């Protein structure tokens, strides 16, 4: 029994490091204080004192704006993700490497959207991912002459299945197909890694919940657009945890007034309670924000309840991502002149 309770050194090490790394994150009080800051330069001044100081101070004063700061926040996010990957022992490395691929997925999505719009993109517009952790040739994708060529460059990567989606893309002329396929590839890789983890039930619960809720939000968004069923199905994540495919199909096909009842019949009903109005009015951004905020609080709770488990490290990574999102919202919102109340309503606090 005692042997059963023993944790692997890799796990103990990464959890301990995550506890230390967590102290580098901005606290909720810090974010709340930044919301009250009257102008953009004062936010910059505040950022020059913390973890972002080195990168922020490297920005020339004429380029000091929300765009440059967002680049810094996402660079820091990538640094934090890949730092965890670097310090993790062999038994957990593959999982965290695949977890960090969400940044890679985000980059591929951005490139494909830009290629779809027949515009050009530079590497500066992407989240910087260390070369050794990506099999995707981003410079080549960025330089590709069109979307077909960009997708073709994914041939030797785990995203090769996107090449088969080109015909469907051409039929419907939408990148939603690729985005759904990318998410599916991402979650499938992560899901298979979980099987090898020491605390797989805990992790399955966290990743599975994220995946299912993402799918529900995606389905609600696609439903609002009245897209063909074939296109909707191709744009969803093809992996389910506590959801059933039939539930998603029902959700997409039911009349808008029945959508809420379908959601109430799912395992995730509690996330939608109190959102009847938003669901009926198809206010997907409100639903998305409310769910992500609930996830944020659940992760906060998990951090306190499972301080010695792998779930703590995942919660830490979730908080890193959340901090990047919150800081982007904060600096961009402040630059655009959003009020304190408005900022509070769109931040994850």
């Amino acid at each position, binding site marked *: 029994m005692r042997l059963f309770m023993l944790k692997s050194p890799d796990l103990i090490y990464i959890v301990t490091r995550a506890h230390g790394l967590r102290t580098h994150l901005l606290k909720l009080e810090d974010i709340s204080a930044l919301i009250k800051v009257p102008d953009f330069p004062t936010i910059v001044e505040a950022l020059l004192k913390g973890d972002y100081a080195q990168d922020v101070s490297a920005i020339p004063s004429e380029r000091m704006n929300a765009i440059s700061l967002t680049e810094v926040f996402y660079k820091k996010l990538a640094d934090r993700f890949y730092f965890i990957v670097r310090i993790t022992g062999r038994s957990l490395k593959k999982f965290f490497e695949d977890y960090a691929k969400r940044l890679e997925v985000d980059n591929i999505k951005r490139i494909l959207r830009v290629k779809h719009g027949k515009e050009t993109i530079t590497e500066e517009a992407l989240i910087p991912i260390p070369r050794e952790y990506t099999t995707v040739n981003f410079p080549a994708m960025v330089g590709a002459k069109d979307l077909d060529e960009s997708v073709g460059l994914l041939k030797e990567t785990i995203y090769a299945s996107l090449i088969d989606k080109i015909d469907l893309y051409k039929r419907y002329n939408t990148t939603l197909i690729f985005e759904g396929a990318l998410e599916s590839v991402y979650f499938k890789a992560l899901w298979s890694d979980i099987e090898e983890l020491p605390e797989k039930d805990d992790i399955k619960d966290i990743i599975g919940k994220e995946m299912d809720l993402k799918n529900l939000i995606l389905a609600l968004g696609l439903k609002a657009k009245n*897209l063909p069923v074939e296109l909707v199905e191709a744009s969803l994540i093809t992996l389910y945890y506590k959801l059933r495919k039939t539930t998603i199909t029902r959700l997409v096909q039911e009349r808008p007034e029945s959508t809420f009842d379908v959601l109430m019949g799912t395992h995730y009903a509690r996330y939608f309670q109190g959102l009847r109005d938003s669901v009926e009015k198809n206010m997907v951004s409100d639903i998305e924000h409310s769910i992500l905020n609930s996830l944020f609080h659940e992760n906060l709770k998990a951090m306190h309840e499972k301080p010695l488990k792998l779930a703590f490290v995942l919660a830490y990574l979730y908080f890193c991502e959340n901090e990047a999102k919150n800081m982007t919202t904060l600096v961009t*919102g402040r630059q655009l002149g959003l009020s304190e109340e408005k900022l509070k309503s769109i931040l994850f606090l």
Partner: protein
Amino acid sequence: MSFVVRVAATKGVLLRLREQLGFIEKGKEILKMKREQLAGEINRLLAEVKARGELEKEVMEAYDYLKKAHSMLGYQNLQSMALTVGQIDVSGLTYSVMGVAVPELRIEKEADISNVPSGVAYEAAEKISPLITKIIKLGESEAKIERLVDEFMSTNRKVNALEQIVIPSIASTIRYIEGRLYEEMLEEFIRTKHVREAIRRRRA
């Protein structure tokens, strides 16, 4: 403010001037009709442009949604999502209103926003997309008004010039010639009378 044009006071000139006056009067009436038509068209378009205030309010509201999306997604992410919006196709034509070439913009294809992946960006696109159509139509009406007003002012100036200067000066020239011809006729009559008197005296 009329002035007399120095012309030979002959019957031929008088006839030609009367003919000219009649022609100019007709032209003036036609220009007045054109002016009224232009005024009517401008008034109709002004009613369309009056909706600008309402449109500006809607734009500001949509701009709030855009600010929210911009803040939540960041510039690079939002920009990439904006590129998934299908292009709007607009064709430009010109047609004539009382001889004035005015532009007409026809929206051949509305922007397709169904590919926007994020909920918050989609909401912003949903608010902005119909406003783009309205803004194009408003721009068209404003361009039409600009051109019609130019023509209205030019027509107005022409009518005023005819009414205030050209017609009165021709009329006074006609009056002058008529006066001169009357005087010449009187002179001729008196001269004839004198000649007849002289002949009668010689005979007697």
